């Protein structure tokens, strides 16, 4: 490794603009003639829209247009869709209700967009939006998914009888029942995975620009995947053909999944730009983000795990009800199915698993992928029930896990996945050593003397990243392939541009991706630029989510680098009159191995472009592209240990230490990987201790601002003790597994296991606020 190559702790190239205020986010964009949009949103969770009177609003100062769903439909704009087809166990396709970008005849959650107002200023647009008179006829409301399945519950969509979108199974039900029939011990657990609001710090925004002369649209947007946005808006929403629609995602201020999806506002602003003849910008308020960003999690689960007399797991049964909210968001169906139930084997050799998932409509915001997407929910089930079982069986939670670890790879689980590599003992050993797990009881006793309840909990999670082999996900219902593309352009002076379909929203791609070229050619990373986030510059890509930019995005770059290197070597061999096999590229020089014959890198690049002296028949230029389609998911795993102290008088939990030992395979930049883990842990601890999303019975979101929804702040969190172990991922050229979601996956069960250990009450819901913890302490007094 060079100082800037693979494995180096290189400081980020992109930081300079962010620390000086020169970052450029969507809401910073200004184009000539630009006007501002505000949306009229439903104040009711469920209602018929009986009339819309926009006359007064149209006469307000500065107003350019007031547009409704009926006009949108008349112009042929399509309904929003979910792009992953899941079939129920009876073979029937999922029941997708219509989702018009602007509601036409009915609204189904508070925040459903009804009218767009375009005006000279944002203030004028808002004033006019308040003057739009929408008449609603209120309908009965249901916000809880289990309640929504009951007979007589309010019905959201005619397509989905009983609000049931699908009733899906995975695994062998009979084999699992048989295993339970012979079990020596069964542990049962009912748990809720609380609904979360992703809360990227940059609220969503979009700027739609229609150019009438060219009949062409440009969409600036806060997107993790601008190419997917273009594809979906073109192929399904009928906005414009792909060659007439450019999508640009400039700097994106966090996403965590919430900026994967194509939302109504992007479609509407593009359409409104054509309709009004002016560029239309919309930037969400935080309250709008709470109401109308896709939420995450919201599962209610009953799980049972069966052991033989030697404490080996013989079977696992899981029944989950997943709240989908009012509409099916873009990838919603994949989250509680193929990203959830497929991970229920955890790190354990479990011969029989059966999972049933019911997906249900309610009068709440749509639910889709949020950091981890299905995998945190799976880990929460598996790791809470393992800890619970250890307590029931009166064995060490660490040893119960160790006894059941998978140790031979590849390992085929009963729930689709083939784990390719891992060493679960290594992460457990690293974490228990770092946390002094063995010495805990002494610390518990010491804390007791101070009147504090001290507890320790662990979680040994596994997840699937590197999403995903296209043919495999296609066979499971995905509407898209999940490869990635890259292009490596060497300029005539030897500087390099790497074009990628991945798109950073904080992950540091401009640095990490440049490290690949630095490693390969020995050039400084400052001579390497990353081009991303613009469909006019990068031909196609699938974007950044599911920790795929490393395992999939960088693998595509490696493939393109291979091709560039091969051509550069051919050119150099020709110029140096040597055999191609003897050419090596090191420290920015292209050399004949074992001789002093060499050329600087830039001269090879220049030769490719002057084309005065190239091997016979070779095309000029030094630029290669590649598509990489992974052969398998990757399987990061690890062990997280949380130690807490609780004040029994107030129920306040303090995390006194948090250890994360993770196996991410090969690591390109350890500094960035550690940062990803820190952030994931904060979100996981936020879920466990602080973040609750509450709708009242009438469907009003009670936690719709930072005054009500508790975001983790610096004071709520400890410093983290993070470390990595390494088993190389065999299914991609860099041996990478991915690290983006691990923190959010491993930490919630570790925290709740620690608290329940401290208070000796296993019945605890997230977020474990002081009130909830105090009540749980009282319940077992």
């Amino acid at each position, binding site marked *: 490794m060079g100082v800037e190559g693979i494995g180096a702790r290189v400081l980020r190239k992109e930081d300079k603009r962010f620390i000086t205020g020169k970052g450029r986010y969507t809401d910073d964009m200004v184009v000539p003639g630009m006007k501002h949009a505000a949306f009229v949103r439903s104040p009711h969770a469920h209602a018929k829209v009986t009339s819309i009177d926009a006359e007064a609003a149209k006469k307000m100062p500065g107003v350019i247009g007031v547009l409704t769903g009926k006009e949108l439909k008349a112009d042929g704009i399509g309904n929003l869709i979910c792009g992953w087809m899941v079939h129920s166990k009876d073979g029937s396709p999922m029941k997708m209700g219509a989702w018009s970008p602007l509601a036409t005849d009915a609204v189904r959650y508070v925040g459903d967009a009804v009218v767009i107002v375009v005006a000279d200023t944002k203030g004028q647009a808002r004033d006019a939006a308040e003057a739009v008179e929408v008449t609603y006829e209120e309908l009965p409301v249901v916000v809880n998914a289990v309640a929504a399945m009951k007979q007589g519950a309010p019905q959201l969509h005619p397509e989905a009888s009983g609000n049931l979108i699908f009733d899906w199974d995975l695994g062998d039900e009979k084999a699992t029942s048989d295993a339970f029939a012979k079990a020596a011990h069964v542990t049962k657990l009912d748990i809720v995975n609380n609904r979360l609001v992703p809360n990227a710090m940059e609220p969503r925004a979009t700027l739609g620009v229609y150019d009438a002369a060219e009949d062409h649209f440009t969409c600036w947007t806060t997107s993790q995947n601008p190419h997917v946005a273009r594809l979906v808006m073109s192929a399904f929403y009928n906005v414009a053909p792909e060659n007439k629609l450019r999508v640009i995602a400039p*700097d994106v201020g966090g996403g965590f999944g919430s900026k994967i999806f194509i939302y109504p506002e992007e479609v509407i602003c593009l359409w409104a730009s054509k309709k009004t003849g002016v560029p239309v910008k919309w930037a969400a308020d935080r309250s709008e983000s709470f109401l109308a960003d896709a939420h995450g999690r919201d599962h209610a689960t009953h799980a049972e795990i069966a052991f033989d007399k030697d404490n080996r797991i013989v079977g696992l049964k899981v029944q989950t009800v997943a709240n989908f909210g009012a509409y099916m968001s873009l990838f919603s169906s994949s989250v509680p199915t193929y990203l959830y139930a497929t991970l229920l084997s955890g790190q354990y050799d479990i011969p029989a698993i059966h999972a049933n998932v019911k997906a249900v409509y309610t009068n709440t915001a749509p639910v889709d992928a949020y950091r981890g997407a299905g995998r945190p929910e799976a880990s929460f089930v598996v790791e809470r029930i393992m800890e619970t079982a250890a307590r029931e069986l009166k064995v060490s939670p660490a040893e119960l896990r160790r006894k059941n670890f998978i140790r031979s790879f590849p390992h085929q689980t009963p729930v689709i996945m083939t784990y390719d590599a891992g060493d679960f003992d290594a992460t457990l050993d690293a974490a228990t050593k770092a946390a002094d797990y063995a010495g805990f009881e002494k610390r518990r006793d010491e804390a007791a003397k101070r009147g504090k309840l001290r507890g320790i909990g662990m979680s040994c999670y596994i997840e699937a990243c590197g999403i995903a082999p296209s043919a495999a996900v296609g066979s499971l219902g995905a509407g898209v392939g999940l490869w990635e593309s890259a292009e490596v352009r060497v300029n005539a002076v030897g500087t390099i541009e790497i074009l990628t379909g991945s798109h950073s929203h904080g992950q540091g791609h401009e640095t990490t991706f440049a490290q690949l070229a630095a490693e390969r050619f020995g050039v400084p990373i400052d001579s390497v630029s990353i081009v991303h986030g613009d469909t006019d510059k990068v031909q196609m890509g699938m974007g950044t989510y599911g920790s795929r930019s490393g395992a999939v995005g960088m693998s595509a770059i490696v493939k393109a680098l291979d091709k560039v290197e091969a051509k550069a070597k051919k050119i150099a061999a020709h110029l140096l009159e040597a055999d191609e096999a003897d050419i090596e590229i090191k420290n920015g020089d292209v050399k004949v191995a074992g001789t002093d014959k060499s050329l600087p890198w830039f001269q090879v690049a220049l030769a490719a472009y002057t084309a005065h002296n190239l091997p016979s028949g070779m095309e000029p230029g030094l630029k290669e592209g590649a598509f990489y389609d992974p052969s398998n998911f990757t399987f990061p795993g690890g062990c997280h240990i949380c130690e807490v102290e609780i004040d029994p008088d107030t129920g306040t939990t303090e995390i006194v230490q948090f250890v994360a030992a993770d196996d991410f395979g090969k690591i390109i930049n350890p500094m960035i990987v550690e*940062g990803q883990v820190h952030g994931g842990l904060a979100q996981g601890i936020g879920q466990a201790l602080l973040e609750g999303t509450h709708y009242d019975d009438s469907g009003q979101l009670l936690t719709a601002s930072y005054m009500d929804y508790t975001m983790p702040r610096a004071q709520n969190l400890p410093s983290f003790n993070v470390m990595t172990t390494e088993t190389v991922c065999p299914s991609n050229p860099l041996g990478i597994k991915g690290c983006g979601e691990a*923190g959010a996956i491993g930490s919630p069960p570790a925290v709740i296991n620690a608290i329940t250990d401290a208070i000796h009450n296993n019945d605890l819901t997230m977020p474990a606020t002081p009130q909830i913890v105090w009540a749980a302490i009282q319940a077992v007094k």
Partner: protein
Amino acid sequence: MAKVELFVNGRAVTGEAEDRTLLVHFLRENLGLTGTHVGCDTSQCGACVVHVDGRAVKSCTMLAAQASGSTVMTIEGLSANGELHPLQVAFRENHALQCGFCTPGMIMSSADMIRRHPNGLDEATVRAELEGNICRCTGYHNIVKAVLDASDKMSKAAVKAA
């Protein structure tokens, strides 16, 4: 409409704004200083922190008209003569930012924090003082390190100068 006269990042600026215009919107929209961000609507997130007359202020809590006559420093004005402020250096060196959206507010708040604690800071104080700034990416771990790092270097530099 109100006439707004400010001294921003060393330059006198004047402009007209609606009475209801917040300082943050005046900075972003009238002056094009888009380094100051809007991350919430309840004065909680701190992405909009700037210095008004030398003190950290959430520029979403102040009307532009109210600020008239003041000296304002935004993130764009923090580095002097092309040299980065020690906090800017420390944020980069400690990987205290990911998406960068909260970063300007974090740095401006931290600069004020360091000013108020010239003899140095400890972790508990930094965490408590960052109460008004939300970051969703970093888990604060490296932000806390960066603030301590900058505070340490700045107090050492101050001792040296004295």
